[in-house]
């Protein structure tokens, strides 16, 4: 498997990255861990005449934890899993990252690459919608912020312009109970269905819930209605049923090698019910 030829760049700062993007336009693309992009290039589904490796660009990695949590785009899944303070502050991240791909891929795959890629199978986008995260991108006109919940437009189409680079992700320290539940055919597979849930509890009833689903549409699906169905309830069987029904009205899966539509809808319901139950037990 030999990808189309390309010119390789390894700039040391963002100014260098932006200059190459400006010079070559659509013919240039950044690469983080390469574990989505290289397979696509090997299959010749992506052609990148000017490939910009971000590995030496300073200031793009690291995790800072305060009332808000900020994660540099080049932070790898493995670094995210290894960070105990992060696992304390936002345990859903480690829980989700451990369900992504396999150990080798997690050493290379980055949070930013997973979010920028725009593949509906990626797990981090739904997770970040659940956490109501904000993405920081930088381009020729400087920096701007985009909400994770507005970022995904269609498969591989996002709110990021081609000449912009994702630099960081931030979100408020999550409260209450969490769960990332994923159904896959084997380790290293993308989700048949996955659910990210955060729930807060007050006086024995649900104060609020945030729910997002993965690989059940051409974008991740933040289901506001599913969260609303739980709010104010004791998260009993009928509330969970109502949340699942609301979620099913928001997803739009297609038939593929992971199964027909009816099967995916069934799995989505099972996975969400499990995720709600687990998140609630931790709230």
């Amino acid at each position: 498997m030999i990808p189309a030829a390309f010119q390789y760049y390894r700039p040391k700062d963002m100014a260098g990255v932006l200059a190459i993007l400006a010079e070559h336009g659509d013919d240039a693309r950044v690469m983080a861990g390469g574990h989505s992009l290289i397979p696509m290039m090997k299959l010749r589904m992506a052609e990148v005449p000017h490939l910009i490796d971000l590995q030496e660009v300073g200031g793009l990695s690291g995790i800072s934890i305060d009332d808000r949590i900020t994660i540099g785009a080049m932070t790898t899944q493995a670094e995210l899993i290894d960070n105990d303070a992060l696992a304390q502050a936002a345990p859903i991240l480690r829980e989700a990252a451990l369900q992504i791909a396999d150990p080798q891929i997690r050493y290379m795959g980055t949070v930013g690459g997973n979010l920028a890629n725009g593949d509906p199978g990626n797990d981090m986008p739904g997770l970040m919608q659940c956490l109501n995260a904000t993405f920081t991108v930088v381009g020729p006109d400087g920096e701007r912020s985009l909400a994770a919940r507005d970022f995904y437009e269609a498969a591989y189409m996002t709110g990021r312009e081609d000449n912009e680079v994702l630099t960081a992700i931030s979100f408020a320290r999550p409260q209450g109970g969490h769960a990332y539940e994923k159904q896959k055919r084997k380790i290293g597979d993308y989700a048949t269905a996955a659910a990210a849930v955060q729930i807060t509890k007050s006086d024995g009833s649900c104060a609020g819930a945030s729910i997002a689903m993965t690989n059940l549409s051409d974008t991740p699906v933040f289901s506001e209605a599913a969260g609303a169905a739980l709010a104010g309830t004791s998260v009993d069987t009928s509330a969970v049923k109502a949340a699942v029904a609301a979620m099913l009205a928001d997803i739009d899966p297609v038939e593929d090698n992971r199964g027909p539509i009816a099967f995916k809808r069934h799995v989505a319901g099972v996975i969400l019910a499990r995720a709600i139950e687990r998140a609630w037990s931790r709230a």
Partner: protein
Amino acid sequence: MSKKQHYTLTVNGTEEEVLAEPRELLIYTLRERLNITGPHIGCETSHCGACTVTIDGKSVKSCTMFVAQADGKEITTIEGLGGPDALHPLQQAFKEHHGLQCGYCTPGMITRAAKLLEENPNPTEEEIRFGMSGNICRCTGYQNIVKSIQAAAAEMNASKEAAE
């Protein structure tokens, strides 16, 4: 074709210069330019782990990295862990506990297992299975691979204690 470039890789402690196109996959550079044929090509699609090497302390599938990305890096392959005259404890344990049959997956398995034991010298069976989940074996059914890794861990811990 894009122009060939000079790249410097440190492989198993030896600095190597190669002249290659940036798009060359690292596994080909290792096998065909440097004649380091321990790492194998199983799937070439990032799934099987036969091509696993260690790069700057990370287990990496070398079919999913361009040689240009590896420029300036330290790479360890199965050849760097041990050889016929001085087997690595993992190599010895795979031999003794039937951790291989055809042997095709073995270099990747052992290279990955070495990194796993470095990070977690006392893994449970579950941790071994999870930590090895990026490596596929068509022959053994994994049972003896797990046993081999457990035996190597015990051996490595015992000799570490003896040294202290």
